[in-house]
C-alpha cells in the first residue's frame, strides 16, 4: 500500500485519543442514570454533563425511563482530551516468567531449600477461588498451582483469615512469602485490610523478612505498592507468574545481603 501512505492517518501517540472508526475521531460511549424524571429536561441535563466530561458532538443514543424519577442514558460523543502516551510509565512486576521446571531449578540451585509460602483470603473476605487458583495443585488456565511445585511449600489457609493470625502463622512456619487475596472492594475494604496487614507486619518487624504479595480482580501492582506490599497481581494471573516473581525477589534480596 506504499503508494497510498500519504492517505493513511497514523496514530499520534503524543496526543492519543479514542478510536471509533476513523483514527483520532475520539468516539466514546457513556452510560449513566440521572435521578430525575424521563423527559426533555433530563435529556438536556445528560447532554450538559457529557459536555462537561469533555465530549463534543454529543448524541443521546437513548433515554430510557428506568423507573419513576430515574432516566437512564446512553450517550456518544467525541473526546476532546488527549493523553501523551509516550510519557506514560507504569510500574509493573518486571521479573521474567519461568516455567515450573525453571522455578524449581532456580530454588534448588540458588536457595537450596524449599521456599515456604502462606496464602489466605483475609478479613471477612470469603472468596477463595482466586487464591485457590494460585495455590491449589490444579492451578489456573492450564498452569499448575504452587502446591504442585516440588521446591515450594505452599499452604492455603483459606478464607476469612485475620491479619494477626496470618502473621503469627508466618512467624511460626518460617514463611518466606505471604499471599493475600482480596476480592470484596466495597468502601475500599480491600485497601484498608491490606494496609492494616502491612502496619501489623511492620510492628512485628516482619516487613523486610517476608515477600508480601497481594492479588484479586481489582488489585494492581501500583495499588499493592501503595499499600506497602511488594507486588500485586490482578485479573487472570497465572500461578507461574507468582512463583517466578517470589523466587526472583528472594534471590534479589539474597544478593543484596
Amino acid at each position, binding site marked *: 500500500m506504499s503508494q497510498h501512505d500519504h492517505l493513511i492517518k497514523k496514530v499520534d501517540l503524543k496526543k492519543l485519543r479514542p478510536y471509533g472508526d476513523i483514527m483520532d475521531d475520539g468516539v466514546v460511549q457513556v*452510560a*449513566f*442514570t440521572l435521578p430525575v424524571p424521563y423527559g426533555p429536561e433530563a435529556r438536556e441535563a445528560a447532554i450538559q454533563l457529557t459536555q462537561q466530561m469533555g465530549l463534543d458532538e454529543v448524541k443521546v443514543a437513548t433515554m*430510557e425511563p*428506568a*423507573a*419513576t424519577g*430515574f432516566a*437512564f442514558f446512553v450517550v456518544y460523543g467525541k473526546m476532546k482530551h488527549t493523553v501523551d502516551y509516550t510519557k506514560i510509565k507504569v510500574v509493573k512486576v518486571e521479573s521474567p516468567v519461568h516455567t515450573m521446571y525453571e522455578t524449581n531449578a532456580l530454588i534448588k540451585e540458588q536457595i537450596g531449600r524449599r521456599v515456604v509460602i502462606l496464602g489466605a483470603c483475609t478479613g*471477612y*473476605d*470469603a472468596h*477463595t*477461588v482466586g487464591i*485457590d487458583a494460585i495455590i491449589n495443585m490444579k492451578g489456573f488456565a492450564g498452569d499448575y498451582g504452587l502446591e504442585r511445585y516440588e521446591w515450594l511449600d505452599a499452604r492455603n489457609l*483459606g*478464607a*476469612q483469615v485475620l491479619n494477626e493470625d496470618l502473621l503469627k502463622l508466618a512467624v511460626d512456619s518460617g514463611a518466606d512469602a505471604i499471599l493475600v487475596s482480596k476480592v*470484596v472492594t*466495597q*468502601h475500599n*475494604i480491600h485497601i484498608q485490610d491490606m494496609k492494616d496487614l502491612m502496619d501489623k507486619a511492620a510492628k512485628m518487624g516482619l516487613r523486610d523478612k517476608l515477600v508480601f504479595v497481594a492479588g484479586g*480482580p481489582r488489585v494492581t501492582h501500583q495499588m499493592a505498592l501503595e499499600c506497602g506490599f511488594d507486588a500485586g497481581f490482578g*485479573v487472570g494471573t497465572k500461578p507461574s507468574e507468582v512463583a517466578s516473581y517470589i523466587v526472583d525477589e528472594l534471590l534479589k534480596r539474597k544478593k543484596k545481603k
Partner: protein
Amino acid sequence: MAHLELNQQTLIECRRLAGQIVSKVKPVIDTNTSVSIERSVLRLIGVEGSVKQLGMDYPVSNFIVDQLREDRVLSRGALFWFANALLKTGASVEELTEKLANGELRLSQIEKAGMAEIKKTAGELCRKALAKLAERREERNLLRKSLGDPMDMTFQGKPLVYVIVATGNIFEDAIQGKAAVEAGANAIAVIRSTAQSLLDYVPEGATTEGFGGTYATQENFRIMRKALDEAGEKSGRYIRLTNYSSGLCMSEIAAMAAIERLDFLLNDAMYGILFRDINMKRTLIDQNFSRMIIAYSDITIHTGEDNYLTTADAVENGHQVLASQFINERFALEAHMKEEQMGLGHAAEMDPWHPNVLLLEIARAQMTRDIFPKAPIKFMPPTRHKVGDIFFSHLMDAMFNFTGILTNQGIQLLGMPTEAMHTPLLHDRWMAIKSANYIFGAAQDLGKEITYKKDGIIAKHANKVLDDTLVLMRKIERDGLFKAIEDKCFANVSRTLTGGKGLEGVIEKDKEYVNPFFELL
C-alpha cells in the same frame, strides 16, 4: 413441555439414600438445641427490643439467652425459664422482657414452678405466637388473591423475575426495589452485608451502611416489606421479599421473616458449613428449626447448591448439586415443608466457552425441573465466569434467561452485566429485567414446541449427572454426611465435625427441655 427420559429407578434409589443419610444425622438434630433456636423462640413469643452492650444495640433475646447459657441452664430451653418467670411474676411478656433487660430480674434466679404448669404456659405462648404467624400467612394469601400472584403462573408461564438489591442502605434498597418492580420484577432479595452471617446476633434498627449488602434487621424487613407492598399495589401484583435464613442466626431470621411476612428465605442445610465455615452440628440443628417455622409460614426456601458451582467446575460437578438437592429435600420434608415450598437451588455456571455449553446447561436445568416437578426451583445466573466485559456478560445472562424459559424454571434470579464489578446499579438491574422480559416473551412457548433427541448430547449429559449422583449418594450414605463433607463431596470444600464457628452455641437438650414449637409446628 419437553422432558428428559431419566432413569426412574435411579431417582427412587437416590431419594431412598437421601432418607438414610438424613435419618443418620437426625439424632444430632433431635437431641440438641442452639442459642439461635432459643433466641428465635423468645422472638416468636414476643420478646422484642434491645439493650445497650459494648456500645451497640444488642437484642434482648440474645441478652437473655446469653444469661441462661452463662448460668448453664439453657439445656432446658429458654421457654422453660421464661414461662416459669411469667408464672411466678405474673408479668406480661412485655413487662418481663423489660425487667430482664434492665437487670431487675434474671431468669435462672426465679423460683421454679411445676413442670406441668410451665409446659402449659409455654404451650399457650407458642399457640399465641403461631396464631400471629398464621395471620401473616393469611394476609399473604389475601394479597396474593386480591393483587394477583405472578407465582401462580410459574408452572404454566414464565419463571418468576427475581432480582437483588444490595446498596447497603435500606432506603436506597427500597427505592431500587420499587424501581425493579416497575421494570417487571416480581421478587426482590435484599442481600446481606458481608459477614453478617458470622454475627451471632441480629443487628437492630434501620441501617444505611453495609459492605456488599444491607444488614438484615427486623426494622429493615419492615421498611422493605412496606415498600414492596406499595409497589405491588401500584403494579397490581403481589411482590415477594427475600432475605437470608442462614448463618449463625438462621432460625431467628426465619422467625423474624415469618413475623414480617417475608416470602422467600435463602435457607440451606449445608451452605453455612461449606461457605461460611459454620459448624456442621450447629447448622443442621438450626436449619431444622428454621424450616419448621418456614413450613408453617408458607415461606419458600431457596437452597444454596448454586454456590457449589462457583468453587467446583460446573461442567464436571452437576452431581454434587443434585445429591445436595436430594438431601435438602429430605431435610425439608423432615421439617414438615411441602415440595411446593422448596426452591431448590442450581445455577448456569459453566464456562461460556465450553463446546455446546448451552446444551449442557439445558440438560442440567431440564433434569432439575423434571426431577423435582412440584418444587419451584431457583435458577441462579452465571457469576463465576463473569468478567468485566459487561457487554459479553449481558449475553451470558441472555442465554441463561433463555435456558430458564425453555426449561420452565420456577424462580429466575437475573444475572447482572456488572456481576464481576459491583453489586448492581439501578440501571444494571433495569437492563437485566428488560432482558428477561424480552427473552421470556420471545421464547415463551418454545419448551412446548420441541422434543429432545433420545440419545443426544442433552440426554447423555443429564443421564451422566444422574449416574454420578447415584455413586456420590452411595458414598455419602456409606460414610455418613459428616465424613462426606470432610471428604469434599460438596463444592470441593472440606469441613470437620468439630471445626467451624458456632459449635459453642450448641447445647444438648435436658430431658426437661421445653419447647412446644417442636410439637406445634
